[in-house]
């Protein structure tokens, strides 16, 4: 069996279990729930909602047959969803179970500056085994997210991100577009080879540093931090090898993402968006990665209702929305064109898995009330063994 035949065979095997009539079953909907961020239940301590986040090294299976080592909050990618009401007092106890340094930055939130999670600027990094307590009042309203701000280039694409939703009992979007169901979609892009190499490199370095720490010999020069620029220059003059040379980090190349995920998975394991005729659904789009996405929905226009969590004065009707790194955008999809539709990145380089098309951030908008007979195929296709349109096909 050659490679092409092999791929075709596996493609058909996968497709055979994902026909629309199967997709429309109750079990398919139940399985699909696992493809969205899981809510993190708070402990109620007086008038404070207390959340616990822990970071560990974890193996993420992006698609069947491909795993890579990642960093994951509570062993989930994305991290669990923190959902609070506007004005809630929030406490997040963050435990670092790895041998690396981390912080948590609350992206888009009005937190006190010492809670902002930027190492050396607002706090010292949370070192291996340490705990750090973040406290803030939940504001403003809207779709936000949290992520690690230490070694951001590596740590974010390694999986250290999660959604943070601040709700309002009088939700302005719900008033305008009544809806019952909403979906959080967290986008990211990963260079799995960069992540692996850099994580290994950092782990090796940290083992050495922790040895010195235990002996009380770890100093600021070894940590590559200086009180003043003069102190830094003096250290360089004394033979200090700056951290920005490849002497002390690797690889020297910038990442080139080869996996594009939605909620930590790539097509065909991406979530489906279920809708019914006449129903409105809200999609909370978060770009926690470093690549721009141009998200296009087939067969519909949708309404952009929030930008960075902020309700826009006038919802904007469109069928393609640009989701830049760090942005959150909320859209409302109106169920007005029954069928099975794709919702994907129109920069189709990102609809690939390690260079193979299709893959990446390709999703399906599925009308639950679509009659199965509408998906039937002609006799030729039935002779191939297909009795309905396949949702998943891995080779063109």
């Amino acid at each position, binding site marked *: 069996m*050659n*490679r*092409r035949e092999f791929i075709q065979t596996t493609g058909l095997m996968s497709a055979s279990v994902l026909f629309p009539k199967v997709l429309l079953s109750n079990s398919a909907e139940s399985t699909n729930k696992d493809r969205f961020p899981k809510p993190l239940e708070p402990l109620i301590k007086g008038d404070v909602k207390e959340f616990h986040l822990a970071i560990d*090294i974890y*193996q993420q299976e992006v698609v069947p047959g491909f*795993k*890579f*080592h990642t960093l994951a909050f509570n062993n989930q990618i994305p991290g669990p969803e923190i959902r609070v009401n506007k004005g809630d007092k929030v406490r997040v106890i963050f435990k670092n179970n790895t041998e690396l340094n981390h912080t948590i930055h609350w992206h888009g939130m009005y937190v006190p500056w010492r809670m902002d999670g930027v190492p050396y600027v607002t706090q010292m990094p949370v070192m291996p085994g340490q705990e750090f307590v973040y406290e803030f009042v939940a504001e403003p309203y809207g779709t936000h997210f949290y992520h690690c701000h230490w070694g951001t280039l590596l740590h974010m694409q390694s999986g250290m991100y999660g959604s943070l939703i601040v709700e309002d009992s009088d939700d302005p979007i719900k008033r305008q577009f009544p809806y019952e169901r909403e979906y959080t979609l967290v986008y990211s892009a990963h260079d799995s*080879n960069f992540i*692996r*190499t850099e*994580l*290994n490199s950092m*782990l*090796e*370095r940290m*083992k*050495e540093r*922790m*040895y*010195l720490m235990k*002996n009380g*010999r770890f100093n600021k*020069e*070894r940590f590559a931090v200086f009180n003043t620029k003069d102190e830094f220059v003096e250290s360089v003059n004394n*033979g*200090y*090898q700056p951290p920005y*040379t*490849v*002497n*002390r980090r690797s*690889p020297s190349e910038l990442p080139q993402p080869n996996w594009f995920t939605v909620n930590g998975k790539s097509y065909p394991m991406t979530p489906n968006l279920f809708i019914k005729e006449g129903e409105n659904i809200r999609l909370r789009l978060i770009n926690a990665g470093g690549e721009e996405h141009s998200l296009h929905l087939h067969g519909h226009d949708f309404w952009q209702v929030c930008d960075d969590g902020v309700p826009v004065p006038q919802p904007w009707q469109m069928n393609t929305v640009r989701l830049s790194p760090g942005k959150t955008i909320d859209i409302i999809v109106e169920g007005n064109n029954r069928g099975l539709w794709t919702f994907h990145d129109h920069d189709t380089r990102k609809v690939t898995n390690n260079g193979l098309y299709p893959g990446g951030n390709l999703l399906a908008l599925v009308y639950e009330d679509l009659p199965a007979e509408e998906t039937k195929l002609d006799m030729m296709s039935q002779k191939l063994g297909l009795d309905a349109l396949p949702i998943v096909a891995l080779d063109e």
Partner: protein
Amino acid sequence: MFKIKTILIVLFVVSMTPIFPQVSPEIQLGVRGLTSINMDIVTDNTTSAVNDFSDTGILLGFRQKLYNQYRGQFVIGLQFPDADSDLGQVFFHQTFLKVENKSNILKMGRSRVRSSLIEFPTLRDDDALAFTDVLNPFSAGENTEDNQFGNVLELAHVHNQRYWFRIHGEHFTQTPIAPATSETDFSLNSVGFSFVYRVPETELWNRPVIQQVGIGYNNYLMDKSNVSNEYSETLGNVILSTIMNLRRDPVHFWDIRSQIISNLGFDNINEIATYGELTRARSIGNFTSLRYIYRKLERPTVQLSVSGGYKTYPDLTNTSSQMQVVGNIFYRLGENFDAGVQVQYQSNKGDLINIFGNEETRVQFSLIYSIDQLWNNQFDDRESLLNLEHGYIP
């Protein structure tokens, strides 16, 4: 019949030619440029100075994921042998294929033979060969490569990431070179096994005192009909090795390594006049190195080592022994570039004088450039921290 077989082979090869788009292989490049000014002072006080670039070499490797969680690798490498080696300008010291999964490694082709279980901190790998390696009894001793490289068939099983059990067979080079046949080039003329406990290099700062302990046994099939009619028994030897961390400090690191080689020898060898007799005589030798590394800001800056070896030949009528002392220092001039000075002294007694002379002192001033580069990095190393401590990913 021959024609049909040939046609079938050709068809098979053609059918396996890649005509579909391929995933690019991982490409590894290892380069070592080594040049030194050598000054030798021998017994009669004559001196010589040469510009020596032997051991300079290139290694090129290609790796790819295979089906069912296996990996495949091809390595080809060449190095410049000593000027008087009779090996020509360039010697292909590595040409092998490797197939491996998490616990097993199959290696076939020309590669380093298991004549030693550990490496020592000398400028060149063969600087103390008589002490650090089992000597090849099929060789006429024209070069050191005959002892270090051979055609290898090896199966290794790795248990619990640290216990390596290897069985291996080799075809050691036989010199003077007989007319080449498939029998003389590739048939096994040695078999052996080894068992080594070794802490992975990546866990450098975790490991306690013991870094490596190993035992190996090699059995040269001297009694094979096509090898020699002279011997009716095989030639065995035992290797014991250990590396211990004296001070596993990231800034001031000290370790010590030692290896004992016991050549069980043939009973009837009571004098040494030729290289063949040297390799076949009963002997016991030890080589030990004490090493210090100063690591300024997470990179080695200076390495100092002192090594010594002693070897005796108990069966010889004349009391015979060899002794060698090696001291060296290497200083990092920049990324991948070192300068070094090595001084070595060797003294021989009894019959060994016939082969090596009375004594020799060598001083070497060297420059070394070495890189290890990777392209199309696709998967992790067996001994990466992620694979070792956070679950192996094929």
